[in-house]
């Protein structure tokens, strides 16, 4: 059954959606999670809960998603196919659904060699597209990948990701087309810092009719410093930060770089609001999560629509 989550309703009504990222703690300190998450309440429509992002061990995304639900924040459960085979993925999806989690974002995940356990065996039993199609089959037909039926009616809103900043745009848009064809209803992108390249990608997606078949939520990023930007550039696969942005940050003294990073992010959001085919923004603020409410306010995205 299709889920009617807050995010789904906002997108369906044509409101400009706002999501952001939350990386679970490396540990079990849930109190600080509750404190940190509280500031997002009423500011964003849903919060992505990373699944061992960059192949680094964190609290499981389904557990933190449930904790967010408990404090009144709607989670988007990220599930990567890197660490679990189809048995474990389906099992965790059923568990997450039983816990009331309804937004699910399907990804392949960064390679283990980029993470904090580089000796680990990568699973990659299935890829993101095969997983999207499995999630859709579980939801719409009540059947596991092996065709066996399940009890209950999981309600799910299915998402996927895309990187517009790639060498061969057509090749990557074909992959996006397959994600949408497999059942992805919303797409979150890598952070947009190069509007021209983003528009090229979006144009290609529109040409294939994809902007009408799914909700595209453009990623934006708040860079806290030149050092952080350099770190992301060299360590996060697929992260594209143009030299013009580096120069703009670098022109500021260290204690003003965060402010400039926030300004850049707000400008990006303002620009993206004007782009046809963009249905919302997904804010990443790595290392400066506490600035997310400020960004949302400055980008005039408040108050959030109340659809409850």
């Amino acid at each position, binding site marked *: 059954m299709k889920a009617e989550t807050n995010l789904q309703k906002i997108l369906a009504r044509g409101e400009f959606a706002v999501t952001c990222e939350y990386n679970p703690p490396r540990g079990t300190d849930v109190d600080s999670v509750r404190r940190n998450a509280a500031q997002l309440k009423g500011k964003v429509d849903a919060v992505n809960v990373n699944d061992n992002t960059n192949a680094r061990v964190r609290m499981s995304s389904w557990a933190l998603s449930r904790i967010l639900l408990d404090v009144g924040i709607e989670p988007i459960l990220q599930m990567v196919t890197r660490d679990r085979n189809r048995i474990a993925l389906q099992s965790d999806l059923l568990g997450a659904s039983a816990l009331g989690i309804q937004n699910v974002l399907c990804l392949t995940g960064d390679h283990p060699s980029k993470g904090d356990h580089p000796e680990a065996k990568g699973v*990659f039993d299935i890829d993101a597209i095969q997983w999207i199609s499995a999630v859709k089959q579980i939801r719409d037909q009540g059947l596991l990948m092996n065709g066996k039926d399940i009890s209950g009616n999981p309600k799910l809103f299915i998402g996927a*990701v895309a990187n517009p900043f790639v060498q061969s745009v057509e090749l990557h848009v074909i992959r996006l087309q*397959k994600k949408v064809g497999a059942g992805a209803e919303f797409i979150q992108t*890598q952070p947009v810092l190069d509007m021209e390249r983003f528009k090229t990608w979006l144009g290609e997606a529109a040409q294939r009719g994809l902007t009408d078949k799914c909700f595209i939520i453009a990623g934006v990023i708040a860079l806290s410093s030149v050092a952080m930007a350099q770190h992301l550039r060299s360590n996060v*696969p*697929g992260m594209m930060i143009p030299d013009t942005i580096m120069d703009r940050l670098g022109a500021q003294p260290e204690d003003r770089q965060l402010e400039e990073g926030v300004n850049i992010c707000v400008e990006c959001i303002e620009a993206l609001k004007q782009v046809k085919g963009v249905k919302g923004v997904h804010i990443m603020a790595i290392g400066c999560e506490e600035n997310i409410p400020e960004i949302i306010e400055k980008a005039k995205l408040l108050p959030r629509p109340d659809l409850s």
Partner: protein
Amino acid sequence: MIIGEHKPIRELLAMIDGYNNILMVGCKGCVTVCNAGGSKEVAILAAALRIARRKQDKPVTIDEFTLDRQCEPEFISWLEDPVEKNKYDAIVSLACSIGPQYIAEAFETMVALPGLNTSFMGGTVEHGIWEEYCAACGSCVIHNFGGLCPITRCAKGLLNGPCGGSVDGRCEINEDIDCVWELIYRRMQKLGQVHRLEESIGAKDWSTSLSGGPRRIIREDLTV
């Protein structure tokens, strides 16, 4: 072919510690072609180990022998006479790991040691450089991908296109590795078959791979 490389000398020395009369066996198959386990490599490695052991004040006798192939029990049986005659403590095989396993099966009381790391199935890219081309999944699908294998040559084994970590045609794990999906794309462009990449490939049946347990092929027409 099967590509292998020497284990580090230090690891080999630890492995043969306590053994004083050793037979080192090379293989004239794949590992000769990739310069890892032929008679030349046996001679070089045996000499290096003898010198190292002499320096440790623990001299060792290492006899050398190279078989046509070590992946045939028939060739392994050629070792019976020298083993009988020389009372070796251990045999170091410089074949892929099939060699030491066949030796272990053929000589019940003999210590069988791998002298090579069996690396992968692949080919020579240029002199001194080898790359992996096949993961032996047991059910070849490369006709869908312009004849290139994404299961082996994509770090994530993706069957439906490149991941978002592919930058400038390079793999996210190492910029020295081509993103095979870019190669597939270029190849499909040349074949005029880019549209074929729009077909979604379903979840692979891995039961024909090692995931299904050790594999065996029986050809009824050839069995006696």
